[in-house]
């Protein structure tokens, strides 16, 4: 049979396999821009992973939660005594047992003056507000026994009326989710004079789009291990945000921050779902404290679908005023955003992240935005890949396609007439953002060519002519987004509770190897590879000599973590900044050792040389000299290392053109994607392999929203899509291959010229697909199909428009 695996050897062979190919080019930039295969892969393809659920510790106990079966009820009694008698059970608690210490789960984004932030106990005490809310817990010797004992807990409820529909929730006499009512906040924003723009406008389009509720569905379920250690605690969690989590847990539980270590080991995807401070994390810590033993909780998929935050869930009313030639005068948006039952970490901020993006890539005179956050008795919503920007992009890109149809113009042409042209950058939009760079013409031209746009339009005309029962639809999406979260000052002005900087430290070790410490917390993004590439170029050291440390507050004490396509744009740039500082130090040491003036020393390919001579010291020699400390300049500390933070002055604005062709069967409603082309401009690219991976994965999720995914509740507020058999994320068989390409206009807001790529695909794809579906059905009078565009929905849209007199050809 197989021999046991020598992990070190595998890792060396993997590394070995990726460094050959080209001889090292001493010129600058030999690593950045190269499609280097990932160093992370070695452990992931061999199963030598460190998922949180893998952790086994002596004396470790397992936690299971009893969860409310009611969407809205008074919790009148919880009795855990029978559970305590079950085999293997060590402890059982109700919310009341922790009432004094469990605090309230934090919301870090109080968006407005009128925001209502209700108390949110990790375990419900006397009221439940969504199905799945924890009401009691059992701690037992293994996971099976913990689950068994839940059945012995008695909980009594007095049902209250569920609140499921946002419009009804805001109507008079609606049952109140919270004492203060069902309105969480209102937020308004405007640029230019919308009244003037809409007054006498030759064309005004009013549309309503529904962003259905989505379940983020990272493949790794959430898991938490809390360990009493020394005077304090170590919390392992499948989280995107170990640093933010540490601060928030300290504030919530009162455990002093310096006695709390948070570790994000290998994390199996997040997409926003692990950008949270969860009830289970807080209670895990409190249980470990109370019992003095390590405790573990791992959710099942069904439990996760019920209780981990959901995404999107907005009703968007968008109005566009335009001239007859298609030029847009102004846009008005009125948004209802479902918060669910409570405000979690950034719940109310999600729609704000879209508020500035409804003007998209277009110039216009006026823009007006109103958003109302609404409480319902469903699991809270919060960040899901794109967070606010997919919603905004969907609405404007759908509306522009509708405008084109209304005017009988080609949707690409309408975009051309409105977009910011390449000569106009930097351009300050009607929403007040300054887009620093971009070239919409180039990305669009490239996409049209790869797609074969004209040929497909010709085929479409032919099939329309023939009344082919299977119609061809073409969808266009020329998106941009704001990412790289974020300038701390801007976040402050939006009432966000923290900054948007990122931290890095770079250390030369005595043997010349390099440790990079980053405050970003990767969970699939390949930072270990990309940050090594940046460092290798900056310091002139081999890629293999760099290691990247992250995801543990004891190792990486400062950071703002990974979300909002920020890691490279903020964190990668911080790594570069720390390298530059190290080089400054090294230069001073080199000048001292070479008996030259600092200014006479220059750096190239890892060596500091006295200008015009062959006298030099390599950075590795300098690292050893600093360590030995035998001959240092006065006041020079014996180490070559540096810390740096980067706080960008502006967001970054990736953009691109995505084109989708679908075949829609007008008899069955079945839609199949025939081809998909994405040309993205994410600025300068550090690793093309990783960038393309992010784009493709993002597109798949965007298609998921367009065609497959929806969290569905029954009239009692029970989630019906608790399993992966009910909540359908796309499988390989559901998707085509995607054609991807890039154009490149470097960002001017950071020295790497990078823009971020984590969310772009998701933001772009959803409107491209739905525009294609509607385009296919337009000859039948269909002007919209609600998402997800399942065969049933498509069929109903056709039936409806046939009933309305066969449509308006």
């Amino acid at each position: 049979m197989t021999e046991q695996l020598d992990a070190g050897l595998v890792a060396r062979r993997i590394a070995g396999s990726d460094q050959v190919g080209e001889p090292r080019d001493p010129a600058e930039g030999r690593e950045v821009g190269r499609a280097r295969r990932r160093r992370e892969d070695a452990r992931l393809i061999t199963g030598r992973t460190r998922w949180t659920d893998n952790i086994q510790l002596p004396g470790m106990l397992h936690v299971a939660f009893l969860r409310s079966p009611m969407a809205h009820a008074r919790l009148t009694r919880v009795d855990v005594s029978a559970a305590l008698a079950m085999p293997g059970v060590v402890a059982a608690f109700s919310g009341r047992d922790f009432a004094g210490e469990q605090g309230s789960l934090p919301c870090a984004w109080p968006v407005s003056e009128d925001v209502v932030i209700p108390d949110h106990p990790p375990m419900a005490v006397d009221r439940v507000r969504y199905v799945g809310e924890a009401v009691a817990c059992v701690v037992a010797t293994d996971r099976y026994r913990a689950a068994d004992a839940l059945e012995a807990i008695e909980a009594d409820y007095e049902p209250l009326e569920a609140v499921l529909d946002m419009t009804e929730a805001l109507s008079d006499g609606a049952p109140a989710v919270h004492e203060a009512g069902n309105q969480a906040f209102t937020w308004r924003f405007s640029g230019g004079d919308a009244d003037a723009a809409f007054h006498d406008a030759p064309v005004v389009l009013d549309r309503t789009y529904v962003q259905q509720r989505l379940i983020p569905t990272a493949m790794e379920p959430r898991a938490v291990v809390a360990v009493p250690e020394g005077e304090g605690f170590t919390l392992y969690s499948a989280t995107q945000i170990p640093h933010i989590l540490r601060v928030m847990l300290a504030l919530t539980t009162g455990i002093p921050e310096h006695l709390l270590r948070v570790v994000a080991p290998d994390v199996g995807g997040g997409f926003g779902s692990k950008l949270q401070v969860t009830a289970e994390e807080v209670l895990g810590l409190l249980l470990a404290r109370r019992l003095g033993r390590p405790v573990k909780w791992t959710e099942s998929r069904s439990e996760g679908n019920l209780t981990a935050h959901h995404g999107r869930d907005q009703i968007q009313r968008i109005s566009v005023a335009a001239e007859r030639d298609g030029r847009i005068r102004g846009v008005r948006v009125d948004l209802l955003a479902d918060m669910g039952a409570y405000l979690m970490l950034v719940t109310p901020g999600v729609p704000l992240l879209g508020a500035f993006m409804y003007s998209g890539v277009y110039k216009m005179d006026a823009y007006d935005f109103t958003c109302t956050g609404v409480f319902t008795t469903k699991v809270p919503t919060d960040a899901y890949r794109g967070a606010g920007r997919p919603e905004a992009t969907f609405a404007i890109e759908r509306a522009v396609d509708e405008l084109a149809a209304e005017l009988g113009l080609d949707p690409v042409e309408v975009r051309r007439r409105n977009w910011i042209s390449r000569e106009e950058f930097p351009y300050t939009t009607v929403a007040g953002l300054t887009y620093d760079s971009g070239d919409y013409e180039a990305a669009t031209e490239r996409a049209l060519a790869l797609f074969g746009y004209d040929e497909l339009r010709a085929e479409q005309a032919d099939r329309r002519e023939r009344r082919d029962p299977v119609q061809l639809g073409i969808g266009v999406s020329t998106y941009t987004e704001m990412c790289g979260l974020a300038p701390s000052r801007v976040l402050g002005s939006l009432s966000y509770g923290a900054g948007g900087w990122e931290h890095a430290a770079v250390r030369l070790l005595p043997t010349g190897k390099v440790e990079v410490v980053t405050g970003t917390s990767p969970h699939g993004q390949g930072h270990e590879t990309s940050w090594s590439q940046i460092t290798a170029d900056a310091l002139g050291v081999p890629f293999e000599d760099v290691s990247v440390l992250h995801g543990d507050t004891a190792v990486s004490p400062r950071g703002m973590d990974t979300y909002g396509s920020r890691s490279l744009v903020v964190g990668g740039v911080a790594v570069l900044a720390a390298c530059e500082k190290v080089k400054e130090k090294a230069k001073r040491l080199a000048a001292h050792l070479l008996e030259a003036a600092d200014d006479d020393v220059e750096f190239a390919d890892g060596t500091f040389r006295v200008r015009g001579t062959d006298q030099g010291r390599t950075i590795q020699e300098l690292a050893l000299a600093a360590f030995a400390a035998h001959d240092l300049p006065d006041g020079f500390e014996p180490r070559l290392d540096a810390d740096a933070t980067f706080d960008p002055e502006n967001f970054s604005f990736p953009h691109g053109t995505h084109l989708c062709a679908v075949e829609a069967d007008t008899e069955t409603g079945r839609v199949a994607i025939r081809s998909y082309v994405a040309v993205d401009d994410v600025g300068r690219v550090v690793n093309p392999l990783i960038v393309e991976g992010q784009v493709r994965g993002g597109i798949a999720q965007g298609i998921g929203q367009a065609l497959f995914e929806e969290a569905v509740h029954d009239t009692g507020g029970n989630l019906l899509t608790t399993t992966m058999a009910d909540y359908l994320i796309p499988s390989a068989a559901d998707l085509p291959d995607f054609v991807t390409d890039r154009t490149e206009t470097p960002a001017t807001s950071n020295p790497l010229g990078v823009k971020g790529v984590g969310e772009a695909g998701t933001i772009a794809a959803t409107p491209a697909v739905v525009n294609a579906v509607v385009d296919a059905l337009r000859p039948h009078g269909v002007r919209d199909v609600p998402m997800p565009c399942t065969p049933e929905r498509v069929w109903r849209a056709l039936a409806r428009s046939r009933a309305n007199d066969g449509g308006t050809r």
Partner: protein
Amino acid sequence: MPEVTVTVDGVAYEEEVEPRLLLVHLLRDRLGRTGTPIGCDTGNCGSCTVLLDGRSAKSCSVLAVQADGSDVVTVEGLASGGDLHPMQRAFHEEHALQCGYCTPGMIMAAIDLLRDDPDPSEEAVRRGLEGNLCRCTGYCTIVRAVRRGARAMSGGRDAGPGGEAGGEAAGGPAGGEAAGEPAGEGVAAP
């Protein structure tokens, strides 16, 4: 409690188990073989796929007692010595993983798929892996990796488990490298 005898990645185990214990929990919680992860509780995601007597099985849908007398190979048992299985290597080379959570199951399912169809078309790979979900990659590179692994396993240049003898020379395999990137990053032993 029933006793089961299983061989996992070449090591024989005798364990007393509750009749309800899932094979995946036996592997993970009892035997410490945590390379095989769990992604769902309904047999839909495929993360937990292993080879059970040579055929792929979702180890969350098999009781430990049902595996009595069986030979189980997990992703941890594929590489031998320092040499990756060609399918593992292909996943790395094609960037067929991001977070890597679905990867063990994908690799095991792919190996099984090739038993029935040693040279699958793109279509066949997509259909064959329908029961293995990935949320990160959009599948394009997974499909390429499976086809690349298939070529390697059927005696292509990267032949056989082991595959240490040179791998693909610079100049690269068909369809492998990312568009527009130099094809020079072949695989070679150090």
